[in-house]
């Protein structure tokens, strides 16, 4: 199964080229941000134009997550050279195309907005919108995408907290393997910066980043890191069977050669080195790979004091004896894009197969000794001897872990 197209919107880029360029040049997408009840804070905000692919009425009726999904889906198809026609999508019958979108949560934005609205009218529920249910159902982002593109195959979301971006990709791959679909649009999205609750909850937990300079707030592995920068965004991939991609002469970004999903079963919010280690080893085993076969390990690290430390412990256990493996982090640029994180972070590393570079983790002024791992790429890109495989990790609350391995397609 191969990735042949990438559609994305990130706080520092609305296409892969711009995004990659900013990841290599140290350009952050974190800005000052204000949201009701919370007030001034920081966030990663996307600047894509929803009206590129939606009518104004469609955008008004739908959700932010729907708009992100539609944008990413259309851009992924375009990038893959697959035309969206009324009867076929990229030459495939509309019912043979699937949409699989990972989400951390969905519906909080709309629910908060409606409560805010009826509060203006003394909680008279005759002012509660009839749009509430279609906007808040868990399949909304995928469903809006099927409506926009006229896709009649399976389209739904996978709830996986902040591991969800990888889940979308993994599920799309499985549906291709099962023969359920012939083309999958798969990845993850997030609109979380539009719900005050997520900021308030991280703040209550002592896990919301603070910094006078927004671009320096998300700083995984740095000694002075103090929490998460919440971001929005999305990345969807076109996934196809290798034979189909070769038959049409498609550009192949990479082949998905391994994956694993597991659960810590240990805590609601605290991560576990044991669970993460098992996840990484599971992904390697699924592809018949050894740690030294991985050239880039993209970490999940969110810039929280404890989370980064726990992850680094797991990395040392698995990759401590692997001098070939370089370790980086994308959240240092874009913050934590929640359900989009896994997919966006994988997308940001796929160009390494072409440019041969490993993008760094930025904002590390003083490396926390507890976060020392071999070949951590600090602040500037490096060019290793080879880049053949990327392992992308994403973890989430309630102890869900996910890992995906993508390999350069060698033809």
């Amino acid at each position, binding site marked *: 199964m191969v990735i042949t197209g990438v559609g994305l919107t990130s706080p520092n880029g609305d296409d892969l080229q711009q995004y990659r360029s900013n990841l290599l040049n140290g350009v952050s997408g974190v800005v000052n941000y204000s949201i009701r009840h919370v007030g001034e804070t920081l966030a990663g905000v996307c600047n894509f134009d929803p009206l590129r692919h939606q*009518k*104004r*009425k469609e955008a*008004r*009726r739908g959700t932010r997550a729907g708009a992100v999904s539609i944008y990413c889906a259309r851009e992924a198809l375009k990038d893959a050279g697959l035309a969206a026609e009324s009867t076929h999508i990229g030459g495939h019958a509309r019912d043979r195309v699937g949409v699989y979108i990972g989400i951390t949560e969905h519906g909080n934005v709309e629910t908060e907005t409606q409560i805010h609205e009826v509060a203006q009218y003394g909680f008279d529920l*005759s*002012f509660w*919108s*009839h*749009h509430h249910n279609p906007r808040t159902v868990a399949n909304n982002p995928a469903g809006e995408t099927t409506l926009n593109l006229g896709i009649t195959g399976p389209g739904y979301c996978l709830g996986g907290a902040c591991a969800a971006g990888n889940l979308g990709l993994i599920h799309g791959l499985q549906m291709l393997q099962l023969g359920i679909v012939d083309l999958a649009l798969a990845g993850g999205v997030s609109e979380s910066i539009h719900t005050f609750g997520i900021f308030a909850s991280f703040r209550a937990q002592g896990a919301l980043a603070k910094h006078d300079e927004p671009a320096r707030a998300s700083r995984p592995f740095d000694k002075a890191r103090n929490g998460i920068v919440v971001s929005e965004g999305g990345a969807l991939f076109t996934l196809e069977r290798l034979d189909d991609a070769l038959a049409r002469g498609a550009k192949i970004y990479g082949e998905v050669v391994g994956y694993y999903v597991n659960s810590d079963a240990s805590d609601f919010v605290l991560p576990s080195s044991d669970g993460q280690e098992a996840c990484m080893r599971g992904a390697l085993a699924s592809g018949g790979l050894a740690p030294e076969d991985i050239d880039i390990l993209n970490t999940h690290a969110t810039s929280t004091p404890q989370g980064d430390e726990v992850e680094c412990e797991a990395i040392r256990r698995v990759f401590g004896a692997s001098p070939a493996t370089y370790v980086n982090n994308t959240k240092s640029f874009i913050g934590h894009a929640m359900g989009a994180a896994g997919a966006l972070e994988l997308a940001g590393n796929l160009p390494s197969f072409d440019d041969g570079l490993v993008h760094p983790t930025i904002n590390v002024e003083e490396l926390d000794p507890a976060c020392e791992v071999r070949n951590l790429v600090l602040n500037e890109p490096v060019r290793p001897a080879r880049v053949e495989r990327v392992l992308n990790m994403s973890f989430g609350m309630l102890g869900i872990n996910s890992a995906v391995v993508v390999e350069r397609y060698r033809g």
Partner: protein
Amino acid sequence: MSNEEVVIAVKDIIATIAPDEDLSGLALDVRLRDQIELDSMDFLDIVMELRKRYGVQVPEEDYMQLATLKGCVDYLGPKLAGKQLVQTAAR
């Protein structure tokens, strides 16, 4: 509110709900749904906006009264009497 203002009020609401539509040539006595793309959810939006902007409650059994602009004038005219015209749609 005059009859002309009732038409302006309703068209302003429709312009908010169906921003892609050209409302300049809407006929008074032809069903709105036969002239522009409006579905049942849009219609509920119109009822909601009347409630929010003017405090006018339209019970379900009266929805058909709003099928045309002329019907809107006849039905809403008395309810909007004395109310101030609200215009919010982007122009």
